[in-house]
């Protein structure tokens, strides 16, 4: 066994891989070879490191130095300076936007320091394609403890008292779900891992699978053991995550070779195996019954859940479906005990399993924040801390407007509610929801009407079209929003919009329809004035809805700075700009179709938007 003194953890999550982190690793290997350090330094691919905005990322251990936004050209200098001479390279480090002084150690960077890792505990520390790495960091110890020292009932009681709730968005207490699946009659039962993750902007499940697939597998084995009569599990991964599928396939193969999956696991007399099923890319297949229909080979359409899937699910058999993150938490709870888990988070679950939100939640922080990436925070953390401390505040010093949580089914939360503690109950109370964990921060330049329209357009396109309110209703709402954003909206439209939203929420067959109107409802509730502006004054405050803008050229700037550079004329599709080179240019409002191209191309900001 080679003895290394240095471990270079190269992030190989999908984000970084698409940013050429593979080339970075090759460059590292080459340079290490050149300096003959190959016996001392090992370069290792890891799963997603979490700080996706800063990719490609390399963390040099044991020093814990965090390098970001690397290019292959930086590698020779880095290897020589840091690996050979032991001098960390300052200009490749992360520096907080405010102070501009680099922070060498990863643990000191606020983005990481304020997080509490349970589901992502192995991120950046192990090679996901090496089962030994996972075992080295205490992997499968939870399974051994469950199989040898605990009866299925004890395991189930442990999960129940830990207060773990569904991380897929519903927040249904996992212990209760396992229990009802256990008591449902039927000799063949199944467990499913929902890795469909259709929300746009949500990628936490993906990075868990890519970074630590065995955590999910161990969780599912423990779950199957606890529920009993479960010998076959499925992981439903969407086709758009090829790297995740590959990592899962490798992990399952290795687990089978090690006897952790298949016949008589660890000679403990328990048989369980997992197969992968690929989702064909329908967002609706994230819903449990639609997912099961898809696994059964039928078109992905939800059915009424008056009889829960834990009693009659896959092929009419009792089936327990949980999200990736939920399964990933299970091994740690069994290993470290329910007390440890319920000590983190809010509320009290001893009496009522719905009584609190325990443990941590992974959010994919995106939008107009400086530090975008995966954030695992304890339940109850104030929203402000996520956005401003971990997220590093709003980019380019713009003013915060709202944060959207829960993906397209969630809602917008204005600044006034920024201090609300993040957990299931609080978020639902303000009209949004925990959802899968998507968190999009918007600033003053975002138009709330346009944001609502964006998310509604997504759910409308993804509606399976089975039930009338969702199929017809969302299209009707989208048409209204389209009219509003081009200035044809009326006051009465706003009333219809709200009314329709509530009908759809109340009467839709599944959660997709039931939550699609949330973005519209919350923006109407908290940002009514923006809708009024669009409708009454036919103006978009943040100039996003271009059809409502009027474009004019400021003569002074155009002449003095731009010297009539004539660029805008070349690009204007309607030939609405008059003016010769070296002279003032002028926009003819009659011809202007308000496409906003001139505003984009003018380098001197001579074009004014009103």
């Amino acid at each position, binding site marked *: *066994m080679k*003895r*290394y*003194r*240095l*471990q270079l*953890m190269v992030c190989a999550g999908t984000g970084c891989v698409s940013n050429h982190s593979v080339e970075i690793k090759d460059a590292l290997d080459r340079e290490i070879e050149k300096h003959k350090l190959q*016996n*001392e330094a*090992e370069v290792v691919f890891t799963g997603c490191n979490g700080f996706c905005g800063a990719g490609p990322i390399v963390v040099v*251990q*044991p*020093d*814990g130095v965090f390098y970001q936004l690397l290019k292959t050209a930086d590698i020779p200098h880095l290897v020589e300076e840091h*690996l*050979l*001479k*032991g*001098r960390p390279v300052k200009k490749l480090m992360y520096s907080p936007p405010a102070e501009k002084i680099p922070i060498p150690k990863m643990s000191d960077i606020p983005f990481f320091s304020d997080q509490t890792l349970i589901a992502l505990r192995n991120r950046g*520390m192990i090679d996901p394609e090496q089962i*030994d*790495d996972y*075992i*080295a*960091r*205490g992997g*499968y*110890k939870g399974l*051994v403890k469950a199989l*040898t020292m605990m009866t299925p009932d004890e395991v189930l009681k442990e999960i129940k008292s830990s207060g773990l709730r569904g991380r897929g968005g519903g927040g249904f207490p996992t212990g209760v779900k396992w229990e009802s699946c256990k008591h449902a009659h039927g000799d063949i039962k199944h467990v499913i891992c929902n890795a469909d993750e259709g929300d746009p902007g949500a990628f936490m499940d993906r990075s868990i699978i890519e970074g630590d697939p065995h955590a999910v597998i161990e969780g599912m084995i423990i779950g199957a053991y606890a529920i009993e009569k479960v010998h076959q599990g499925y992981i439903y991964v969407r086709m758009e995550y090829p790297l995740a599928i590959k990592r899962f396939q490798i992990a399952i193969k290795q687990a089978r*070779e*090690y*006897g*952790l999956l298949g016949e008589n696991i*660890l*000679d*403990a007399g328990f048989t369980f195996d997992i197969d992968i099923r690929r989702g064909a890319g329908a967002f609706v297949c994230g819903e449990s019954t639609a997912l099961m229909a898809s696994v059964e080979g039928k078109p992905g359409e939800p059915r009424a859940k008056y009889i829960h899937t834990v009693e009659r699910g896959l092929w009419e058999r009792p089936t327990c479906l949980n999200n990736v993150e939920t399964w990933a938490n299970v091994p740690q709870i069994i290993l470290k005990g329910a007390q440890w888990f319920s000590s983190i988070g809010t509320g009290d679950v001893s009496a009522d399993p719905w009584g609190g939100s325990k443990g941590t939640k992974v959010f994919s922080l995106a939008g107009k924040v400086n530090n975008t990436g995966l954030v695992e925070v304890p339940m109850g953390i104030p929203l402000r801390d996520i956005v401003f401390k971990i997220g590093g505040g709003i980019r380019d010093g713009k003013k915060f407007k709202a944060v959207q949580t829960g993906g397209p089914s969630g809602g917008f939360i204005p600044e006034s509610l920024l201090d609300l503690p993040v957990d299931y109950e609080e978020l639902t109370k303000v009209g949004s929801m925990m959802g899968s964990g998507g968190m999009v921060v918007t600033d003053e330049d975002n138009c709330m009407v346009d944001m609502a329209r964006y998310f509604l357009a997504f759910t409308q396109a993804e509606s399976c079209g089975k039930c009338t309110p969702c199929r017809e209703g969302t299209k009707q709402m989208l048409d209204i929003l389209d009219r509003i954003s081009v200035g044809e909206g009326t006051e009465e439209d706003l009333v219809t919009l709200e009314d329709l939203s509530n009908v759809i929420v109340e009467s839709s067959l599944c959660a997709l329809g039931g939550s699609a109107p949330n973005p519209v409802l919350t923006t109407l509730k908290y940002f009514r004035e923006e809708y009024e502006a669009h409708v009454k004054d036919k103006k978009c405050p943040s100039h996003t809805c271009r059809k409502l803008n009027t474009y004019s050229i400021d003569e002074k700037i155009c002449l003095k700075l731009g010297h009539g550079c004539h660029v805008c004329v070349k690009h204007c599709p309607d030939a609405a700009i008059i003016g010769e080179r070296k002279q003032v240019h002028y926009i003819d409002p009659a011809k202007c179709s308000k496409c906003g191209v001139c505003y984009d191309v003018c380098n001197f900001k001579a074009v004014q938007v009103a």
Partner: protein
Amino acid sequence: MAKLKIEDLDRIAEEARSKMTIREGAGKARITVHMGTCGIAAGARAIMSAFLDEIKAHNIKDVIITTSGCAGLCSREPMATVEFGNQAPVKYVDLTDEKARKIFKEHVLGGKFVMEYALSVGSERIR
């Protein structure tokens, strides 16, 4: 690999122990060899391989060995600092191959300072 028994899990964990300590950066002892340009010129590389050799020989898993830049005392290179557990770090100077191996045995393994090679005990205060 044949099917695992429960005890196999612990064996695998033990084998990968050394890698993990490095990754977690939490070892029993830490040797820092000063490899500034002057250090390397003075032969710090040899000292480093000596230490590595000792680690391999004694199959030590929980000692971290890193490099750092010039400690400021170029005349006494090659130098190395050894921190054992939470004791104060000790700077050794004018090291040679066998000096390094002696320090390794007595200080890194035994936990006793080797005063005759040491320059100072304790570390500078960083404002």
